[in-house]
């Protein structure tokens, strides 16, 4: 190893010495020919220098999603039962338990229905932290429903992080509305 390094060092020194002498005496201007079209991108790209846009999506079916495909979403049915959370918390507050019970009751009235829980955050956390936090909120609500007798296999969760605020404002009034879990009732589509 040491020998190798020494060789490189000496070869480098030689190159520098020669290059330096060359520049000094003749000032040759070395030319770099850059490949690519005038509008081309940096990098080793395909024809035309453009990135290939995403096509059809292959692979990886979502087992859980398939159980929910073909369901129609009713956003209005449970909209008044939206649960709100404290700052940076995924704990379902006691004051929100009545809403959770109302959702359980609605699901109890029709065994063919399923439930989508959307977890949301206010804008104050970092993006991917909030995506985790939104999921934890949705999962906490699923757990709260399971505790009072709802079969958790009827429930799907999705986190939107801070991507879908209920209130676009940037103050505590908006933030308190945005830290939430929304319930979407899923019905089998008529005819299926």
């Amino acid at each position: 190893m040491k020998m190798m390094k020494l060789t490189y060092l000496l070869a480098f020194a030689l190159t520098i010495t020669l290059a330096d002498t060359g520049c000094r005496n003749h000032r040759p201007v070395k030319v770099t020919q850059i490949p690519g079209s005038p509008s081309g991108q940096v990098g080793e790209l395909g024809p035309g220098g453009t990135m290939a846009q995403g096509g059809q999506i292959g692979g990886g079916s979502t087992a859980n999603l398939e159980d929910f495909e073909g369901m129609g979403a009713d956003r209005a049915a449970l909209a008044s039962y939206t649960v709100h959370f404290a700052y940076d918390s995924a704990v379902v507050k006691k004051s929100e338990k009545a809403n959770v019970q109302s959702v359980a009751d609605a699901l109890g009235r029709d065994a063919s229905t399923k439930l989508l829980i959307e977890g949301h955050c206010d804008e104050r956390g970092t993006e991917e932290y909030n995506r985790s936090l939104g999921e934890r909120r949705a999962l906490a609500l699923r757990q709260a429903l399971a505790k009072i007798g709802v079969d958790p296999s009827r429930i799907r969760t999705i986190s939107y992080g801070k991507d879908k605020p209920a209130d676009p404002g940037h103050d505590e009034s908006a933030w308190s509305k945005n830290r939430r879990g929304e319930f979407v009732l899923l019905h089998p589509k008529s005819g299926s």
Partner: protein
Amino acid sequence: MKKHYSPLLKICLAIFLFAATGAPGQNEITIRPELTVLGSTKPIPVSLDGFSGEVADVLKFDLYVQGFSFVAPDAAQYQISGTAAGSVQGRVVDRIAKSTILSHSYTGASLRRQAHTFADDIVQAITHKKGIAQTQIAFKAQSTSTGNGEIYVADFDGHNAQSITHDDTIVAAPAWVPGRLAVYYTSYKRGNPDIFYHNLGTGQRRVIAGYSGLNTSAAVSPDGSKVAMILSRSGSPNVWVCNADGTDLKRLTTSSEDSSPCWSPDGQWICFATKIAERRVLAKVPAGGGAMQPIPTPGAPNPTEPDWSPDGKWIAFTSQTAEFDICVVPASGGAPTVLVAGEDPSWSPNSRTLIFTRRSVGRYTLSVLDVFTKQVKDVARISSSDSQPAWAR
């Protein structure tokens, strides 16, 4: 190892000795101490003459975010001069050593591209390190009204941006495959946050993680063979790892809340944000599985979004107090350095520059930061909110 001097080495040695002794007084060797302290290094003063328009703009941007400042020629340590007429031609004179250290002209592609190449040659000639002027980034461009967005790829300065998706859905967390023209990202296209692999040469893409619940924050191992990510399929958001194609899935953590995994450059560790004893911390776990170890960041609370530098020395992250700050901590632990206000840092391939986001009233702007001098410049804007930058490396 046995000592054995090859003939080539002997010749080199002879020439070297001759060159070193046979040219007395030609070049005084001045050894300047290289002050590279995180956040408080003085920029290298250079002068820039003869360039105009786009070429001048590119050179100024590229050099500023790599720790150079612009001064008058007689105050400069290095004098950079040349022309942008037709094609870029330039040279660099070391004013102290009184020697020309670079003299070069460029043809082909675009003036912009030639200017970036010249900038890289300047950085190489002065610092003997590889520059970043010809590197690329991926990021998320989001509409603040709908929340939907697309994944973009651009030059590191935001120019030549191209959207690689056209799905009009929520997207997140792009990650490059090291050394390859391929990315992973999160897309809600199928109604759930799933992780897609996307080959940028062919446009082919496939879902590598589409489990129930959250699938996000893909991070590719340095050799490209593994992907770490956040899945919530077992009831809480945790770090999981799988092969590049999604097979051989394995859960690495069991804590209650994890986010934003990244790899150590030797592929041995995965660092991420989590909570231990009710405190938000950074931690690392062996990539093959094992016990979680905290990475203390004393004085920089609520750390998230870690990114391990490619040279292995540092971990950059976001600290949250009333606002957000970009911080850097030695990877082996120690006191973090708070650099500038911002979020979501991603290291350049040469471990000297970070691209990160600056927030103002709900919108993000991408910015580039030289971690030694703290010189910052915003990159070209694409959408109402550009965020989650990932530097190709």
